[in-house]
């Protein structure tokens, strides 16, 4: 016997057609939705039965029905009657309520349907995208980036003298007007790079630590003047910061695809939440007062 038969039941088809609430209500009250003693055979019920049996979901179920031979149609009717009878018997036994596995599966199926996975939101208009962009453009910010070279004084090598050495080095670099390309001639070997071109704060942080990356991004651009020293986990750094691209909000066209994806995702999430919230709102929650004193019931219907 296949307990999954219930999902082929006509009431669920309404869900797929978008009549979620009505169906939820029906599902919660199956006896009202179905006259449990009468199995009706008609073109509509058989058409839907065929669709679910074949998972074809085309609009031509009626044609398919007409094309069946009398023998094939009789077989189909036999299957339909058998499935309906067993299914309704199972409901009468209360299996949908008593069997935890079925209960959990029903819940998952509801979530799945609420997610709208079977009918994705595909009706985003330009206006939708523009509105979403206006509200969320900050999320698409192209992060600030810096271009710099540095002269490094290793704390492992010079210990507590590092700071004063760095200050001396700073004076030397500035007195001699040391250029960007001359930086390799000074200081100790740094474990990562010497020159950083158009790097974001995250990237700089990965090499210098988050603290120093923050300080570096606060410096102003100076084409000639070496700045610092800034301190990393590795030691002191004299910095020639020659370019700084401020964070920038890209135009809508630059991020249109990303926005469409995100808006779609958001709509689906909202729709799911709305459907579930509505379902929950149909119920009154009664809670043991002893328990209520201890916890917050967040999903309780406002009374």
């Amino acid at each position: 016997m296949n307990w999954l038969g219930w999902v082929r039941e006509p009431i669920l088809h309404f869900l797929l057609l978008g009549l979620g609430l009505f169906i939820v209500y029906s599902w919660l009250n199956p006896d009202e939705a179905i006259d449990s003693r009468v199995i009706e055979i008609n073109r509509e019920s058989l058409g839907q039965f065929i669709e679910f049996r074949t998972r074809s979901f085309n609009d031509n179920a009626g044609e398919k029905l007409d094309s069946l031979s009398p023998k094939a149609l009789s077989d189909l009717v036999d299957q339909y009657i058998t499935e309906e009878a067993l299914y309704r018997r199972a409901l009468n036994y209360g299996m949908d309520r008593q069997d935890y596995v079925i209960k959990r599966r029903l819940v998952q199926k509801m979530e799945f349907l609420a997610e709208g996975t079977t009918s994705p939101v595909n009706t985003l208009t330009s206006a939708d995208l523009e509105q979403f962009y206006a509200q969320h453009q900050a999320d698409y910010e192209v992060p600030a980036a810096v271009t710099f070279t540095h002269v490094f004084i290793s704390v492992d090598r010079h210990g507590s003298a590092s700071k004063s050495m760095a200050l001396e080095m700073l004076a030397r670099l500035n007195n001699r007007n040391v250029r960007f390309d001359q930086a390799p001639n000074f200081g100790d070997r740094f474990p990562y790079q010497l020159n950083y071109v158009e790097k974001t704060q995250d990237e700089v942080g990965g090499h210098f630590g988050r603290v120093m990356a923050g300080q570096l991004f606060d410096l102003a651009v100076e084409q000639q003047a070496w700045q610092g020293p800034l301190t990393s986990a590795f030691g002191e750094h004299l910095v020639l910061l020659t370019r700084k691209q401020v964070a920038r909000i890209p135009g809508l066209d630059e991020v249109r695809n990303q926005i469409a994806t995100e808006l779609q995702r958001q709509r689906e999430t909202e729709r799911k939440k709305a459907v579930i919230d509505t379902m929950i709102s149909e119920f009154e929650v009664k809670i043991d007062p002893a328990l209520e004193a201890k916890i917050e019931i967040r999903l309780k219907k406002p009374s």
Partner: protein
Amino acid sequence: MPIRLPGLVLGLLFGFGAVADPYSTPVDSDYPKNVYWGDTHLHTRNSADAYSLGNLNLTPTDAFRFAQGQELIAHNGMRVQLRRPLDFLVVSDHAEYLGGFYRFNLDDSLVRGTDAAKKWQGFVDAGETAKVYATFVASMQDPENNPPLPEASRRAIWEDVALTADEHNKPGQFTAFIGYEWTAMIEGNNLHRVVVYRDSADKAKQLPPFSAQDSLDPRELWKSLARYEEATGGEVMAIAHNGNLSNGMMFPSVSVDGNKIDRAYAELRSRWEQIYEVSQVKGDGESHPTLSPNDEFADFENWDWDNIGRSQAKEDWMLKHEYARGALKLGLEYERTLGVNPYKVGLIASTDGHNSISTPEEDNFFGKFPESEPGPERMENTLAGRLWENWRIVASGYAAVWAKDNTRESIFDAMKRREVYATTGSRISVRFFGGWSYDTDAVDDANFLDAAYSQGVPMGGDLTTGPENQAPKFIVSAAKDPDGANLDRVQVIKGWLDEQGDSHEKVYDVVWSKDRKLDPETGRLELVGNTVDAETATFENSIGAAQLATVWQDPDFNPKTRAFYYARVLEIPRPRWTTIDAVYFDLEIPEGAPETIQDRAYTSPIWYTP
């Protein structure tokens, strides 16, 4: 160096003399300058075990988004985010019933009506849902009685998996690899491999994943990879893991058919398996105290009680067939007798998380299954509700890759050439090179990489006959995680064959943080100390060093025999995740759990062949 000379001559004739800059600008630093951090082994709800154990909703998309730094709600309800995003990720769900359980539960048409679904439905109807999970476990070891889903379903599910990776792959920013796990298990012994694709879905989708239901023999897996490359022109590789749970079968002396491994086995394996996942949530597999009694740091987060099926207790003979160092030594022995080294593997680590959340760091560790996500119970409950105590799981690790760009091609190629290393969850940067003519102060030069690459080979490479009466030199240069713990020491681990063909090993301390001496009797370096305060789960970087670098020459070199060398970098002690949990949830640290951990990096070896 006969090959380099013509290049130099050509360069002089046509390059340097003619124009100021080379026409092709990339040539002036034609070596990888960036280290990229990733996880090659992560499961989502598409894995049958992950789904059965509560990962009902977190998809590959969630995994890719989280890896790129997005916030996620974990199964325990906590918000979770990476402090630093990953550069790359392989979502490697189990190929056995891939996507099957969750699709079954949703009555998805790809699964409905299949023999497997009918069987599962029978168990569900009988109220025996545990038996549904058992069919997954059985599928990994008894394919005859647990056949796969129909091929059409497998293809459709696989295409969905592959396209999802494509969707998240952003060359230059984030690499999303297509992958899966072949999860064969023989009598409870773990033979698992992650398969990684260099390709996009257009190629990857052409053949469904090869699962344990197709064969339990790794040779059949390798042949399937060959068939894939043949059919599509694509490229794939396999990465084995958890030798520690294989009871001697991961780096075997006999193949699964009971015959001694032969040259054909060695050729196949070395063709498809260039790297090994040495450390992950189910234990660290670099070495073991029984195998390496003179290595005081070998006893590190080892899981050495039994196999993954918990069906047979561990015996000492198994260990050298399970741990990376044992395998590297065996590899030298087999290379001598078979002519091919079957176990010539570079080293990476990964998480093997099953909750779609890749978190290898001690202070942001979200466990393996939902049941080991942070919470007051997690140190006391057991893995998958039936295996080992969860306080034993290891917050580990990262796959670190030296590559030129963050692309599928660049990272995959680096893995193939083994220019990769493992860390147990810390972002230690480490370079390792071998050569014959390095200056002893090479690492002091700001541009030492030019010399390191032009006069030798990086990690994963090979050295052969050098100048007469000279021993090879090794450059090692390590830097601490810029936001993490200082470094304790760098060691070089050497394995070699003697002239009778027996293998040996030795650990050399080569550079360490200052003010410590080697004990003249034991040759051991003084311990670095410990700044951990377990009461607050904090530590201070007042000991150790930020960087350690040196040029080391092998003092015991015998040019006539095979050898390998790799570097191990140790951090100073910091609080283990269990110590952090104990403070956060106000609990006792479980008995047996160490308060501290010295996270570490293992480089891929460099091999010397006479």
